[in-house]
């Protein structure tokens, strides 16, 4: 999260208003550019500029001062106040403003919003949601409209707005602390939220960070040195030490681990329990066992095997292959599997995924996705890749998330068994669109392939088979390589 100091300009000077009241202004400096310099020296990584006269007049008034700051500072500057026409927005954006902030009333001019978003991208357009007495205040801070917040959120979403500046006007300039509940509503609705109003101490900033806010705008508190910018920024820096997972995959038939490029030429690789122990000792973060025969008779053997594996190893493992009912899932989880992987059953009957997630928890429901490239898109295949569907893979992934899937295991039929690298484009598309963990599968033949999939896609884990079974590379060696390449991996 970014901590962003605010520069409010009135009559060419830096001022702060109390609760948005133009009669209650404190002057903090005569020259806004000097203030910008002061904030940058204090550690600001972005500036928030508001032309207060402009907001009142409905057109930029302190444009010269604003443009001067935009042109002369080396950090991103977002600017608002009186931007109500395409030309006004464009002037600032062309001058190098990172974002323009349109007033709340912009939602009454959908054509303008749509055009700006289309021409400049949604990441450069921010809409202010000024909240007064629990409603969206439409013009400046002086007139209250009667738009309830829920309706405001729905409208903003519909218009394609991504960045929202949420200000509880009744708290602005008060150092009373932000309205966390209100801000949380906008975050939960899926917006990139910049919060403003009442932010006065480190605890406020930390709390906003926990809410998932993208940026916090502080005014009075930084002017009066109640909030140290550097300290505040350090307290909310994005930290993540969750490691990328390396998962050996073992195909099981008649109680043995097998491998082959097609089902008719299967070769026995070894005993499942022995291999499971070996891999978990050698750094596997998880294991996957697939029942490739999935016959009625084989099913029983497999269940027994799952129980033996659960007793032997102390890392999590997923089982899959031919699971077609809630009863199948229950019996495998009871035998000791941590997760189950569903493929064909999920495609044919998405409702089963929902039911399974409700019964057993999302965390143990993995959806196996078989994708094949067709033109610009990927088509979902079922029955082990033997049968195409008419379902688009990206749509399917999104639907599975909605149904409650905890994780996606993505196979590329174009890459499977080729050792030619993961399908990075497919994985990028899926991880951009769906925000649950994704396991990359198919095509990982060399350590370089694994590094690349983590460096260039949002994949959280990667599955490998032949690299471990045949090429003699063990998971911990692979992870050593990944660490050296800058990928967070468990030693």
């Amino acid at each position, binding site marked *: 999260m970014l901590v962003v100091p605010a520069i409010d300009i009135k009559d060419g000077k830096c001022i702060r208003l109390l609760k948005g009241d133009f009669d209650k202004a404190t002057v903090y400096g005569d020259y806004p550019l000097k203030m910008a310099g002061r904030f940058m020296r204090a550690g600001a990584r972005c500036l928030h500029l508001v032309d207060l006269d402009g907001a009142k007049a409905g057109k930029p008034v302190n444009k010269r001062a604003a443009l001067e700051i935009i042109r002369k500072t080396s950090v991103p500057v977002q600017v608002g106040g009186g931007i109500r026409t395409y030309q006004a927005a464009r002037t600032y954006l062309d001058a190098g403003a990172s974002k323009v902030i349109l007033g709340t009333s912009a939602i009454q001019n959908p054509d303008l919003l749509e055009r700006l978003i289309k021409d400049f991208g949604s990441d450069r357009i921010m809409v202010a949601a000024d909240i007064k007495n629990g409603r969206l205040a439409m013009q400046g801070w002086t007139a209250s409209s009667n738009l309830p917040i829920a309706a405001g959120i729905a409208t903003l979403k519909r218009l394609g707005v991504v960045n929202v500046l949420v200000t509880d006007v009744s708290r602005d300039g008060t150092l009373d602390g932000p309205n966390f509940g209100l801000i949380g509503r906008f975050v939960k609705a899926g917006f990139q939220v910049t919060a403003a109003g009442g932010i006065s101490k480190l605890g406020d900033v930390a709390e906003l960070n926990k809410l998932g806010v993208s940026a916090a705008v502080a005014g009075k508190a930084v002017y009066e040195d109640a909030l140290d910018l550097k300290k505040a920024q350090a307290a909310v820096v994005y930290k*993540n030490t*969750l490691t990328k997972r390396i998962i050996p995959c073992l195909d099981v038939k008649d109680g043995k681990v097998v491998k082959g490029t097609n089902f008719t030429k299967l070769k026995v690789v070894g005993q499942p329990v022995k291999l499971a122990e070996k891999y978990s000792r050698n750094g596997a973060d998880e294991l996957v066992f697939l029942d490739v025969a999935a016959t009625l008779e084989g099913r029983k053997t497999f269940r027994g095997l799952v129980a033996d594996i659960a007793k032997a190893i102390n890392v999590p493992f997923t089982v899959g292959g031919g699971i077609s009912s809630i009863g199948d899932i229950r019996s495998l989880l009871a035998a000791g599997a941590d997760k189950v992987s569903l493929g064909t059953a999920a495609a044919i009957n998405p409702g089963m995924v929902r039911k399974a997630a409700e019964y057993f928890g999302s965390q143990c429901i993995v959806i196996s996705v078989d994708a094949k490239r067709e033109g610009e898109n990927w088509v979902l295949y079922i029955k082990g890749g033997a049968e195409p569907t008419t379902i688009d893979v990206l749509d399917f992934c999104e639907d599975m998330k909605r149904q409650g899937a905890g994780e996606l295991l993505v196979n590329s039929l174009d890459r499977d068994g080729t050792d030619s690298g993961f399908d990075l484009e497919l994985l990028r598309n899926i991880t951009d669109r769906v925000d649950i963990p994704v396991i990359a599968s198919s095509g990982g033949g060399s350590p370089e392939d694994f590094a690349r999939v983590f460096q260039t896609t949002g994949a959280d884990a990667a599955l490998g088979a032949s690299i471990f079974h045949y090429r003699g590379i063990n998971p911990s060696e692979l992870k050593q390589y990944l660490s050296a390449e800058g990928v967070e991996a468990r030693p």
Partner: protein
Amino acid sequence: MSERGNYIAVIDYRSGNTGSVKNALERLGVKYVVTDDAARIKKASGVIFPGQGRAGPAMRQLRLKGLDRLIPRLEQPFLGICLGMQLLADRSEEDGARCLGIIPGACRRFPPSVKTPQLGWNKVVSVQSPSLTYGMQDGGYFYFVNSYYFDTDKVYVAGTAAYGFDFPSAVRKDNYFAVQFHPEKSGRDGERMLKAFCEVCRC
């Protein structure tokens, strides 16, 4: 502390993945019972409170069995795991559940800025002495599966991990110690911790 049996009681309330804890204790060769019986839990020299699933149904099960009154009164070493840690809080955002109120605080959902569930191995920073945390390895990697985290006062935080920000990976108050991760699924580091816990309980 008189008349305690030298066994670990694993609390069974139909919300825990007791199977994996059971397997881990088997591997350690520890004496244990999996039970919902108040007398056997009270008599145990140590208690493990596993958990998986949702806070609401889990609390309903505990109330149904009267365990919601028993658990806060235990005096022996106590180890909560995953949901078994979150249920020690006052309340949880998950299902709006009122929880056991053993350690002050509330469980909150991770923000949309990170993927939920958090799933995988994360690095745990221990902020209390190893003697208070059953040797939970500082800088060790443990296996997490959670969409909610226990937001509590610093004084109760025994360890942290970073997922967007530092969240409590372990909490402690008096004899109650609990971890957000699954030691029973956390390879050698997890096994070492469980072993240390059982040794303190003399099992």
